[in-house]
């Protein structure tokens, strides 16, 4: 079995197990306010980190890709205009693809 398959299966099983654990554990366990604050803030920190790394990261280094940055900018603009999720994605990919096709970036 390849390393990728193992990563896929471990991720899949653990993500399901976490959901089941949450539904099974007594709610009092998360009574502490700081635990609740951590729970609500963790996705914010991780998603922001992913956006940053995927936009300007290349392996173990940082690299500016103008088309990719413009695509993310287009996504932000679409979100400011309250566009639905799919429109946001299409705006980002379309912008990056167009700039590359035109040879601008």
């Amino acid at each position, binding site marked *: 079995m390849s390393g*990728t398959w193992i990563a896929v299966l471990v991720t*899949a099983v653990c993500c399901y197990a976490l959901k089941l654990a949450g*539904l099974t554990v007594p709610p009092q366990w*998360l009574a502490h306010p700081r635990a609740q604050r951590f729970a609500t803030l963790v996705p914010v920190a*991780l998603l922001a980190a*992913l956006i940053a790394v995927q936009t300007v990261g290349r392996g173990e280094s940082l690299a500016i890709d103008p088309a990719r940055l413009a695509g993310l900018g287009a996504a932000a603009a679409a979100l400011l205009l309250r566009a*639905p999720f799919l429109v*946001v994605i299409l705006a980002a990919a379309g912008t990056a693809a167009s700039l590359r096709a035109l040879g601008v970036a």
Partner: protein
Amino acid sequence: MKQAARDGIALGLAVGTSGLAFGAAAVASGLSVAQACVLSLVAYTGASQFALAAAVAGGGNLIAGTASAILLGSRNGLYGLRLAGLLDFRGRFRLLAALGVTDESTAVALAQPAGGRPGRAAARAGFLATFGSLYLTWNAGTLAGALGAGRLGSPNTFGLDVVGPAAFLALLWPRLRAGRTERAVALAGAVIALAATPFCPPGLPVVLAAGAALGAALLPSGAAGTADAAQAPGPDRPAGPDRAAQTADERPCR
């Protein structure tokens, strides 16, 4: 209860189309069609799936990539803690319902008027309707996106490399609008990850970014922090103190 089901079905159908984006991004990253589908069928949590695909695309440390995907999935466990008392599913049905715990199904269940048997029925109806429609469209979308992307050639030509970041930005957007604490934690998380990138295998910097949330949670937060702690993230969630940026922990990994 009918309204809850209608809302859930509509939200599920709309959000589920983004399974296309995941399928396309997964195959562009180097995952096989089967691997993309297994993730959507069993993990069934968008952010984790995108995170693992990103680790595969980076050609980096699969262990760190898997760890960040699981850490991202841990919030579903925390949602579960809140949903357990609200939905009160038991026995074998709880094994099935657990699969359906996502941002969307949680949001719809918590949005129903609480109280007594009608409140529980509405929460259950909203949760199950969202689960059903989102699960079907997310998985159908994953398969279609994965098969389509295979015929398209270089993913960058079609801008598919920006689909992941754009999807995360869209998923994060409501929380960034929720308050200053969220924005400070997001900024600190991004800074930590970028600072750590040159020193760590791909995947690990994102895990380290959790330090931003830990710092913000451990800092003395006063009344604002305790008052809003029980609320799910949302536009009406009051802002806490803006101190998270001071907690950035940028230790290099080696």
